[in-house]
C-alpha cells in the first residue's frame, strides 16, 4: 500500500467504512434484485433509521472521550411516552405536545448522565449503565406492556415515500439522513466542533487553552439523549405502537456502528457521517444474512463474525503498517 493512501485513510478513517458499505451494498444487491426499487429501499431505510439516529448521538459522546450506555433505555422511555401520549384520535396539537414532552424527558435523562460524568466525575461507562436502569424503570412505569396505537395519518406520513414528482418519490428516511449529514457539515464548521475534538483528544490541554471541558462533555450527553429521542420518534412512527423494551437491543450496536464508522473509542477522532455508514453496514449485514438463505441458527454467528472482522480491520491495518515500516 503506498504512503498517500495510508495517509488519506489516517486522516479520513471513515473512507474505509465507505468502502465496506459499498461492498455490502453490492453483495446485498446480488442477493436481492429489487434492492433499489422504491418499495424495498423505503422499507429498509425506515427500519435502519432509529439505529442511525442513535449512532449519530453516540458519536458525540465517543468523540469527547466517553460512552453512553443509556441510549437504549432513553429510547425505550421516550418511545413509551410517545406511544401513551399520542392516542389514535390525536390532533396536531396533541402530537406536538407529546413530542415536546418526550424531548424534554430525553434531555432531562441526558442531563442526569452529564451531571454524573462532569459534576460527580464518575466514569461514563458505569454512570450511564446505572442511569439506564432508572430510564428503563421509568419506561416500564409509563407503559408496562407493549401497546398504544398511533393515528394512521401520522404513521403513513412517515412510512410512505414523499412524492417529489409524479414518477419520483423520496423515502422520508433518506431525507432524514440528508438532514443529518447537513447538520454534521454545519457543526464541523463552527467552534463547537473544535471544542468537542479538543476535549476528547486531550482534556487537560483543552482546559488550559480555555475550553470549558465540562460543558462540552455535558453537552455530548444532551446530544446523545436528544438523538435517542428522535430515534424513538422514528421507531414509534414506523411501528405505530410503543414497547417499553424497544431500546434494549439498541445500545451496544450503536457503539459498534460508531466504531465501524471510524470514530476512535478513546476520543478525539471521529465523524457522524461515518456512524451513519456504520449503522447502514450493520443493517445491511442483517439484510444480507436474511437473504442468503442461511439456516436461521447459523445467522447470528455469521452476523457476529462479520461484525468482529470489520471491527478488527483498523487494528490489522495498524499491524501491517508496523510490519512494513
Amino acid at each position: 500500500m503506498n504512503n498517500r493512501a495510508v495517509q488519506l485513510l489516517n486522516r479520513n478513517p471513515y473512507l474505509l467504512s465507505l468502502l465496506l458499505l459499498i461492498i455490502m451494498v453490492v453483495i446485498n444487491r446480488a442477493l436481492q434484485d429489487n434492492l433499489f426499487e422504491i418499495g424495498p429501499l423505503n422499507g429498509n431505510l425506515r427500519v435502519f433509521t432509529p439505529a442511525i439516529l442513535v449512532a449519530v448521538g453516540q458519536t458525540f459522546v465517543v468523540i469527547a472521550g466517553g460512552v453512553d450506555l443509556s441510549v437504549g433505555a432513553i429510547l425505550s422511555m421516550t418511545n413509551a411516552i410517545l406511544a401513551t401520549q399520542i392516542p389514535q384520535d390525536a390532533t396536531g396539537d396533541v402530537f406536538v405536545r407529546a413530542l415536546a414532552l418526550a424531548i424534554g424527558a430525553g434531555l432531562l435523562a441526558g442531563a442526569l448522565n452529564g451531571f454524573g460524568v462532569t459534576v460527580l466525575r464518575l466514569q461514563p461507562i458505569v454512570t450511564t449503565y446505572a442511569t439506564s436502569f432508572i430510564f428503563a424503570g421509568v419506561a416500564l412505569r409509563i407503559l408496562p406492556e407493549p401497546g398504544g396505537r398511533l393515528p394512521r395519518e401520522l404513521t403513513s406520513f412517515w412510512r410512505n415515500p414523499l412524492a417529489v414528482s409524479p414518477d419520483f418519490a423520496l423515502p422520508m428516511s433518506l431525507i432524514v439522513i440528508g438532514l443529518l449529514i447537513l447538520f454534521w457539515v454545519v457543526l464541523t464548521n463552527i467552534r463547537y466542533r473544535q471544542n468537542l475534538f479538543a476535549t476528547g483528544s486531550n482534556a487537560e490541554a483543552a482546559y488550559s487553552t480555555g475550553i470549558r471541558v465540562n460543558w462540552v462533555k455535558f453537552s455530548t450527553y444532551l446530544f446523545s439523549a436528544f438523538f435517542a429521542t428522535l430515534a424513538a420518534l422514528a421507531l414509534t412512527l414506523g411501528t405505530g405502537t410503543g414497547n417499553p423494551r424497544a431500546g434494549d437491543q439498541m445500545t451496544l450496536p450503536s457503539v459498534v456502528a460508531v466504531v465501524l464508522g471510524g470514530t476512535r473509542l478513546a476520543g478525539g477522532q471521529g465523524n457522524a457521517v461515518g456512524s451513519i455508514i456504520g449503522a447502514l453496514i450493520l443493517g445491511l449485514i442483517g439484510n444480507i444474512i436474511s437473504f442468503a438463505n442461511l439456516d436461521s441458527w447459523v445467522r447470528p454467528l455469521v452476523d457476529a463474525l462479520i461484525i468482529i472482522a470489520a471491527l478488527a480491520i483498523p487494528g490489522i491495518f495498524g499491524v501491517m503498517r508496523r510490519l512494513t515500516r
Partner: protein
Amino acid sequence: MKAISVQVEKAVKTYGGVVALAEGNLTVQSGEVMALLGANGSGKSTLSKILTGVIAPNGGQVLIDGKATSFGSPQEARKAGISAVYQELSLIPDLTVAENIWLSHEPIRGGFIKWQEMRANTQQLLDLFKGLYGTNLQPDALISTLTPDERQLVEILKALSFDPRLIILDEATASLDSRQVNRLFELVQTWKSHGMAIVFVSHRMEEIFRIADKATVLRNGRTVGERVIAESNERELVDLMIEGATILQRERLPVVDEQKPVRLAVENLRTNVLRGVSLQLRDGELLGLGGLQGQGQSDLLMALFGAIRCEGQIVLSGQARTFHHPRAAMKADVALVPGDRGSEGLLLIRSILENLMLASWSRYRTPIAFSKARADGGQIAQELKMVMSSLDAPVNSLSGGNAQKVVIGKWLLRSPKLLLLNDPTKGIDVGAKAEFYNLLDRLRDAGTAILFYSSDDDELLGLCNRVLVLHDGEISAELREDKLTRENLVAASMGASA
C-alpha cells in the same frame, strides 16, 4: 499595546498537606523581561500557573494594573491579556497546527469558522520562524506528526496568537535548537519594545543573562529575592537559589583501569533518532553522556535496554546481543533508571515494597515468600537511607529524592553489571543528590559499569572522567581528562567539535 503591570503578592498553594508554594511574590511590567529562577520544586511552575489561572491559589492575591483579580479559569487570565507557553505542552494531538493555534478564538463569521483566514494567519505566525523548521510544519499538519521542537514552536505561536500583554515562557527553550532560540530572543526584544511584559522561566543561566532584565528567585516555595541582571552575576543568583549549598566540587577520579574487561561495546547503533553511535564501556567505569536534551541520549539508553527498536551491533559481556524486550536485557544483568520517574519508573499508587520488587517477584517462588521479600526490601531501603513511614506506604507519599531511591533500589536488588541512568537526579534535592553521588562511587568501586546521562553539566564534570557528547543523534565529541571542561562541553553540545 496597552501597558500592563502585574503583581503577585504572597501567593500560597497547598495540595493536601504538601506545600507547593509558601509565599510567591512577583512583579513585572510592560517592556520588561523578568526571569523566574529556582531549583526544581521551588515553586516556579506553580507561581506561573497561578498567573495564568490554571491553578487556583489558596491565599494571597494577584494585582493586574493595581486591581486585585482572581482568575477562575485560563480564559479569564487570557482576557486580562496574560498568555503562557507551558513546559508540558498544551497542544491537542488530533487537531492541526492552525486549529491548535486558534483553538477557542477561531476567526468566525456568522458562527462559521473562516478556515482560509485561519490558515493564512497561521502561515503568517509560522513565518516568524521562517527557515528554522522542517517542511513537516504546515498549517494543516496534525500535531501528532510533529517533532518536539516543532511542537514547541507551535506552542509559542499559540500563546502569541492571543495578542497578550504579558507572555510567560515556561522552559520554552528546552527543546529548541540554538538557532530557534536565537530567533525567539530576537522576537522577545521586539515584543519588549512594543510594550509587552515577559516572564521567562528557564534553568539555563546563560539564557537568563542574555535576555532578562531582572530575576526573581524562588527557593522552597518562597520568593527569596529580586535582582537586576545587569547588576548581578551568576554566582549571586545561584547562591540565592541553593542557599549556601556549594556547587558540586569533587576530586578528579582516577583514570579508568584499562585492564578491566569491556562490559559493553556498541558499534554503529541507529534508531529513529540515533544516527550511528559507537562506544565502549569497561567494568568499574562511569561514562557520562552529555549534550542538550533530546539529542538521542534517551534513545541510546532505551535501545541498550531493549525498550525501543534499533539497528547496529551491541556486544555485552563479550557476546553479541539483541534485546527485543527489557525483560531480556534485565536477565542479562542490565538495568535502566528511566528519565521520567512518574511515567516510566513508578507505580504511583502502589506500595514502596511492590515498587521495589516489581522486577524481582519471580525470584521469590510461588506463592511468594513474602517475609523474605519484605526483608530484602527493608534492607535495600536502609542501604539507600530511604525516609518513609513504612514499606507499605504508597510510593506517591515520598519526596522526589526518596521516590528516585525506590527506582534505583528496584534495580540494585538485581545487582546489575551494567547500569543505565537517564538523568537520575532531575528534580531531587541537594541532600539526596549527594547521597546518590556516593552510591555511584560505591557501585563503580564494586565494578559496575555505568552509563550516565545527565542534563546537569556540573554533574558530568564532577563525576565522570570521560564524557560522550551527543548532538543530533551522533557523538559530537569524546571529552576526557584535560579536555573535560565546561567550555568544551558547551561547545560540543552546540555541535562544535572540541
